């Protein structure tokens, strides 16, 4: 009857330890937040499911065994992790293609100075990067991956982590998405602290109409400019701009629709579950995780502050003042951060209508983080 003992030994129950149980509960928690609190459900629901299946003992769904030994041994999410992230890193660019096909750059074109706010909000990245270095716990590559959490942009965080610190990927990605789901709690106190009631009540003129020619010119111009300066940002920036040109050209609706629907949905299913599977108990139950959690919060906070303060600074020299609340949207967290700018503005004065304006720094923040990620990759 060795088979019976073998079978019992090969069951998950006999191999369960308490940390895996905690992780399964964490996964269930993410699912609860996604379903009942509607917090970033497209990321936190599949991530939660990934956390659960990765922590059920011996399920092997996240295993990747290279070479001939991999015969019938690798799990589907192990394969996706290996080829989609750790080896070729091609899944984040595919997501960016879809994001490009869904993004409207009009707010940036109508009000180009909001690009600067998108740059300022990258401050959080560098603060967290130094914080991580200061702890002495992390290599400089890991510090960069932790810093990029402050970019508040999931695929960029995943892309950079897969390049520089694949062992941290699950943690940085999950923390980034968690704080993105929580910007409604993180940003408003800082926004109210750093702005006066009068500033928050500044009414901005509605953005101007943007011509088709401008929308068509932006993607190739931005793509060529940015990739010429930071070639390593190409996987993100080129795909973002290709997707956007599919959309704005109007001549390839089938490609634009597929990029922004089926393709990005398929990539999301596999990418997000796979990200979840990287949260294994042995990685999470580590002092580092708590440190990264704290640093991520610092990063989000400093990014918010950076955007707000630059907006206030620019108001000192601008004739037509802008409402500094749109500065905090520069952290990305598209589109939640822009919505928060809008809501806080409305609280001050119902005539303050910031949604359109805040989308400017919001998408600029996506570009800014991708540029910083490219710089990190170039130098590390």
């Amino acid at each position, binding site marked *: 009857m060795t088979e019976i003992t073998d079978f019992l030994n090969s069951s998950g129950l006999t191999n369960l330890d308490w940390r895996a149980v905690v992780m399964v509960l964490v996964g269930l928690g993410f699912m609860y937040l996604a379903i009942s609190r509607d917090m970033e459900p497209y990321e936190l629901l599949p991530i939660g499911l990934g956390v659960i299946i990765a922590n059920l003992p011996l399920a092997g769904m996240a295993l990747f065994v290279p070479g001939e030994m991999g015969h019938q041994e690798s799990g589907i999410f192990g394969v996706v992790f290996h080829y989609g992230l750790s080896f070729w890193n091609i899944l984040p660019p595919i997501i960016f293609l879809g994001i490009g096909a869904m993004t409207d750059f009009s707010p940036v074109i109508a009000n180009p100075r909001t690009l600067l706010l998108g740059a300022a909000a990258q401050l959080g990245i560098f603060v967290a990067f130094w914080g991580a270095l200061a702890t002495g716990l992390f290599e400089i590559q890991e510090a960069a991956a932790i810093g990029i959490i402050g970019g508040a942009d999931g695929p960029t965080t995943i892309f950079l982590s897969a390049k520089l610190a694949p062992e941290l990927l699950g943690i940085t990605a999950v923390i980034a998405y968690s704080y993105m789901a929580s910007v409604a709690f993180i940003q408003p106190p800082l926004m109210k602290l750093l702005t006066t009631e009068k500033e928050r009540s500044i009414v901005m003129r509605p953005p101007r109409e943007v011509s088709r020619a*401008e929308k068509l*010119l*932006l993607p190739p*111009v931005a793509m060529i*400019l940015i990739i010429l300066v930071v070639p390593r940002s190409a996987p993100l920036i080129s795909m973002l701009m290709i997707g956007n040109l599919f959309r704005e050209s109007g001549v390839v609706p089938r490609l634009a629709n597929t990029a922004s629907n089926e393709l990005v949905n398929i990539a999301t299913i596999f990418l997000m579950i796979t990200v979840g599977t990287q949260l294994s108990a042995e990685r999470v139950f580590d002092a580092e995780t708590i440190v990264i959690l704290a640093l991520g919060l610092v990063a989000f906070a400093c990014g918010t502050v950076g955007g707000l303060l630059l907006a206030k600074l620019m108001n000192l020299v601008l004739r037509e003042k802008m409402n500094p609340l749109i500065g905090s949207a520069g952290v990305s967290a598209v589109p939640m951060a822009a919505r928060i700018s809008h809501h806080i503005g409305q609280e001050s004065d119902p005539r303050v209508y910031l949604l359109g304006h805040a989308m400017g720094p919001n998408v600029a923040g996506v570009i800014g983080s991708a540029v910083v990620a490219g710089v990190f990759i170039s130098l590390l």
Partner: protein
Amino acid sequence: MTFDQELIRQGLTLTAIGIATAFGLLIVMMVLIYLMGWATGIPARRAARARVAAEAAAAESRDRALAAVAAVAALSRSGEHAEPTT
């Protein structure tokens, strides 16, 4: 806090290049977008100028036509105002 000199230097360079590049690129992009807006506006502005000129010309010829009509009317005292099309 266990910093070694080399790490600080590397971190500083990274931060400097990172911030400079992000701001530099987005400032250039800002300038290019302003240029694009100006350049793509040229045909529209030219058209607008042309339209203004055309309207002025049309107005002038209308004035002349009206004058002629008025003259004719004044001469005949039995005509109706013709509505000129632009």
